[in-house]
């Protein structure tokens, strides 16, 4: 009955996070919002991975979402977070629908590298556009949400709460999607595309759909990150950012829709602690932790949670 479990865990987690919102210290609110934002991108990656495809270019949508949100503020001078989020999702889903037509025909490393190429082309364009501040990027500041003006200083907490709700919705929807026929079909495609075609289903359509879902979630994550940070820059589209998402996906585990968020939160926490307490060797610390996790938790962090549950049962 994992469905009930996951859904209930999801609900409980969301309620707890919302209840905590007013009391958490600002740095934790920020850390969690960022973790939720990146978790959304990884969630999309997990959907894609069900079909056996790993994208090293999700930074494309993360960056696009961030810039879409920021541009709504800077260019259109709409300072409403809801509009920014909508613009980000629309923009990235749109681009994904175009690129998907091409990318859905690619597999394995070629899919990975072609998506990487596209993300790096966006990176290049952003770096070239001095109007957008080139590599320095520019700041954004949303002052209202869905028309409701936010009290100065409280914005971050509101964005955090919105992120929690958005994650709840997205994770639940993805969970339903993946435990439906289409989830199983995705796995079938990963195992044997030929047979899927011979059963009368279009592999292309499924891959395409999952790619667009991943793109939209990537854009949403990017927008939340931009709202939390208050600044966008091309780094968001750089290949190392994309690589980080893939790592978090593996770190968390691809078995459960909650795993990406656990993975993202732990990753952010480890990196922050390493940077604050081992500023000279934080990369090494991070690397060693990564290796240890890959070695000792082959199924990802979520396998721990799963183990705890089975013990509890």
């Amino acid at each position: 009955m994992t469905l009930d479990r996951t859904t209930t865990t999801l609900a409980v987690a969301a309620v707890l996070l919302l209840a905590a919102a007013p009391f958490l210290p600002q740095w934790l609110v920020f850390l969690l919002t960022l973790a939720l934002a990146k978790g959304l991108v990884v969630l999309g990656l997990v959907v894609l991975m069900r079909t056996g495809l790993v994208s090293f270019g999700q930074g494309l949508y993360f960056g696009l979402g961030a810039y879409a949100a920021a541009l709504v503020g800077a260019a259109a001078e709409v300072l409403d977070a809801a509009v920014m989020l909508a613009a980000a999702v629309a923009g990235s889903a749109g681009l994904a629908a175009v690129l998907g037509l091409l990318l859905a025909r690619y597999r394995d490393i070629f899919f990975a590298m072609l998506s990487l190429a596209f993300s790096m082309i966006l990176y290049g364009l952003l770096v070239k556009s001095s109007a957008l501040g080139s590599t320095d990027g520019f700041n954004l500041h949303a002052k209202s949400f869905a028309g409701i003006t936010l009290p100065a200083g409280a914005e971050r907490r509101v964005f955090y709460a919105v992120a929690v709700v958005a994650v709840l919705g997205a994770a639940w929807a993805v969970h339903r999607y993946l435990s439906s026929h289409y989830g199983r079909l995705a796995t079938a495609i990963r195992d044997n595309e030929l047979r899927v075609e011979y059963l009368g289903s279009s592999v292309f359509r499924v891959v395409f759909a999952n790619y667009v879902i991943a793109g939209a979630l990537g854009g949403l994550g990017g927008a939340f990150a931009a709202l939390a940070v208050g600044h966008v820059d091309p780094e968001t589209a750089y290949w190392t950012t994309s690589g980080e998402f893939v790592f978090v996906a593996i770190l968390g585990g691809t078995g459960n829709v909650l795993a990406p968020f656990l993975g993202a939160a732990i990753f952010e926490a480890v990196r922050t602690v390493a940077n604050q307490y081992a500023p000279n060797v934080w990369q090494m610390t991070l690397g060693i932790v990564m290796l240890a996790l890959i070695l000792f938790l082959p199924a990802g962090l979520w396998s721990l949670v799963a183990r705890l549950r089975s013990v509890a049962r």
Partner: protein
Amino acid sequence: MSAILVAKGVNKSFGAVTAAADVNVAVDRDAMVGLIGANGAGKTTFINMVTGYLKPSSGTIRFDGRELTALPPRRITQLGVSRSFQIPQLFNSLSARENLLVAVGIVAAAAHRWAHSDLTPARAGEASDEVLERFDLAAYRDREAGLLPEGVRKLLDVAMALVVRPRILLLDEPTSGVSADEKFAIMDLVMGAVRGVTVLFVEHDMDIVARYAQRVLAFADGRIIADGAPAAVLADAEVRRFVIGEAHA
């Protein structure tokens, strides 16, 4: 009796190799047709062309009056032409039941595309279990397909081909890689399950051909060298030399 599958002047060559040379066949509804011939004689190539895996270099293949040669496998399946594989094509990380659920789910999710289908998403589960029963695979219900014994994989492969409501079913060596004593058991199960479906099956074991086929097509070098009732074809001198001689060598 009207022909459901008609191939006219079908040719196919890979560079120098001729896999099909002027193949002309008309298969009647509800026929049980055995395809025999040495390895590389063109049997599988014929099946591959009918099901859209290969495009003929020239010639036409019609199913129920509908030209197939331009269509992708997916569309051909939806029209009611299904196939099994010499090497079972399964979803190895899924259980036997989930394999069938995928197949059922595909039909149920897009029932409108199918010529005739009574499957609905709601019925998917029980439909899969029915199939497991019919092919007595119930014992392997929740075992990972990748780890099943070859004979079982063969059956599951055929079972999946049947789930998608075919009107004609092409079986590529359904009993190859299976011990001699299992062969008949498998064929009995299959033939029991395909009532009302036209069947073409590739087979090397002439006893099986003689037992299950109403009609036999003998291939050699991409050409059909004999076509008729099993007894007649199996007695044909050319067939004995080209097919059976080599088949047993």
